[in-house]
């Protein structure tokens, strides 16, 4: 029975969107065929459940994807001024990162290990990790603490630690943080048991033990209307709008008494159809409305702020001649004598921030077409779960060895035999998939008499 089931007419009209599919066998077929040929009475594997074969076949597909199969996956973007590229959804590792010049030829971008994007942690002027503030007054039975200035970095969920024992506020959690005329008032989760006036240094830390992030929170006053159960704040103030509005970005967290903790900004519209001045869309519904005045205050902060390291690296204008040709990242050293060859390239640099899942590029690549060639484990979608016919035998041998070696009471000689057969089959597959053609090798070897320049 022939393997082709589609008529030539259907194939060439691409009815099933399967150009070139004949070179592959689906993973499902590999598993079915394995069960037929290797499993059963008087076979090498008398009994095995299909799910075990499925597991080993998928593992084989993953492993072979990493170093035997050809890598066909790539992605192209135009690099924006943020100099970042999000790693593809099915990314496992990169093969090559390059930019494309006007001639369409890819120029390889080299990775750098000399910079990174660390997490910025908050540290106070005393070198500690607590957020410090100075209290000026507390009133008996009131939940409020009046501070001596603006403290947008004291966020709800922070706990007051080791101060104000005399007022009974120690250990209470911040419920809200509002500002008026440059003075911050904190509302705590419990009332004071005594009054206080003067200057008292306060320490705030997160109750869950997390360290504060150096994300420079800021107030936004006169926010506008909030309607209960709606995911937005609408400001109709056309004049005197808080200048900080320009700092609000999508993805920022908002701390506001009318919204649950953890609410994020999903969109900002500074020219809405409704005629309002600004509409800030949020991820959560308002738990209370606010319609009668514009004096409500919210704190906005970036949960994933850029580190200073990244900001500085990004800020260097590497497109200028001096900085571009140095390539040593030491922008003040423009000498070329003694240049380390590993840094001697004019194609820019990148590094991968594993934590955020983004590739960061040097500034000379802004606006350029970036191509990322990468490998996946071929398990991302059902359509890509397929094996090149050159590697089909390697799959069978891999699965057979994996099952035999993980089953009790299998003769060790049989396991060893299949280990050797798997090794040989994988090597054969790799060689075949390398697609070495005699004429192409010959063409390369024709240049063998050229002088090798060092």
């Amino acid at each position: 029975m022939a393997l082709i089931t589609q008529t030539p007419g259907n194939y060439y009209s691409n009815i099933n969107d399967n150009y070139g599919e004949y070179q592959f066998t689906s993973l499902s077929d590999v598993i079915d065929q394995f069960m037929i040929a290797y499993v059963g009475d008087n076979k090498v594997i008398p009994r095995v459940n299909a799910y075990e074969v499925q597991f080993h076949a998928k593992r084989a597909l993953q492993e072979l994807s990493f170093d035997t199969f050809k890598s066909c996956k790539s992605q192209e973007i135009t690099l924006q001024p943020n100099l970042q590229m999000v790693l593809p959804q099915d990314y496992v590792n990169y093969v090559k990162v390059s930019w494309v010049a006007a001639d369409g030829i890819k120029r390889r971008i080299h990775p750098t290990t000399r910079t990174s994007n660390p997490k910025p942690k908050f540290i106070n002027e005393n070198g500690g990790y607590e957020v410090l503030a100075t209290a000026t007054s507390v009133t008996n039975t009131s939940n409020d603490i009046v501070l001596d200035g603006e403290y947008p970095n004291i966020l709800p969920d922070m706990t007051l630690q080791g101060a104000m024992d005399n007022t009974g506020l120690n250990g209470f959690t911040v419920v809200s943080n509002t500002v008026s005329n440059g003075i911050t008032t904190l509302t705590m989760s419990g009332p004071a048991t005594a009054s206080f006036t003067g200057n008292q240094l306060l320490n705030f830390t997160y109750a869950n033990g997390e360290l504060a992030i150096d994300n420079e929170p800021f107030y936004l006053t006169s926010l506008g209307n909030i309607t209960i159960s709606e995911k937005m704040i609408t400001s109709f103030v056309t004049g005197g709008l808080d200048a900080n509005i320009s700092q609000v970005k999508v993805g920022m967290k908002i701390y506001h008494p009318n919204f649950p903790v953890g609410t994020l900004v999903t969109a900002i519209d500074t020219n809405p159809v409704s005629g309002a001045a600004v509409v800030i869309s949020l991820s959560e519904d308002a738990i209370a409305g606010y319609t009668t005045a514009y004096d409500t205050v919210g704190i906005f902060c970036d949960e994933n702020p850029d580190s200073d390291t990244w900001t500085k690296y990004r800020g260097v204008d590497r497109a200028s001649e001096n900085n571009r040709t140095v390539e040593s990242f030491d922008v003040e050293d423009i000498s070329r004598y003694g240049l380390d060859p590993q840094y001697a390239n004019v194609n820019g640099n990148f590094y991968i921030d594993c934590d955020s899942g983004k590739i960061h590029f040097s500034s000379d690549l802004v606006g350029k077409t970036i191509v990322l060639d990468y490998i996946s484990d071929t398990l991302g979608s059902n359509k890509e779960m397929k094996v090149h016919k050159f590697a089909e035998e390697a799959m069978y041998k891999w699965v057979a060895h994996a099952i035999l070696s993980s089953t009790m009471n299998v003769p060790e000689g049989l396991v060893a035999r299949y280990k050797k057969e798997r090794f040989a089959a994988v090597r054969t597959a790799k060689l075949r998939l390398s697609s070495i053609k005699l004429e192409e090798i010959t063409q390369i070897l024709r240049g063998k008499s050229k002088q090798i320049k060092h």
Partner: protein
Amino acid sequence: MVLIDTVYQRVLALANKEQRGYITPQEFNLFANQAQLEILDQYMNDVNYFNRTPGNSEEYADMSRILDEKLGVFKTELTLSAVNGIVNFPVNLYKLGKVYIRNGAREADQLTKDQVSRITKSRLTAPNQQRPVFDILNNQIRLQPAISANDVVVSFVRKPISANWGYVVINNKALYDPNPAKTTNFELHDSEETELVYKILKLSGAAIQRNDIAQFAQGMEQGIQQSEKV
């Protein structure tokens, strides 16, 4: 199909009813059904035994094929409905065979409940429409993924219909009545006639307290079974 009257007459002849004992139709019918189920059960053990032996390629002597033919009388297949993955057992099910979804296109593996629980935790092993699994609980097949469909095919060995020697009483004697409303023949393969006679005779010997008959029948029965496995 084995004719029940033939078996009854042979059993009576061997029991030598005039001199030694008589087996009533009621007793015979009871023993007949027990013997039929014993033979059916023995098929499963024999399949297991003969699958472990080399077998042969002769036309009429490969025991695996012979057993498959004998069991074929009771093998059946039904298309059933699954509601949220639950399929009720067929009413005449004796031994469950395979379960398929999509009209037989994909076979479901039978697992235990804890195995199903384990494999659903990993995306590498999780059951899907291509590789469904099932476990059994409360006489129900529980498919994973929990599909709702009308094309679940279940293959199984069904229960044999109860054999019954029908009769009418004339002059205080039971005479055979072949009327299908009264008589049901054995469903077993024709080649089981001899073993049926010996099995029923063995049981009858025990019932009428004639050890010589029971021992004779047991010896003959063992002889048949041993010759099959030599």
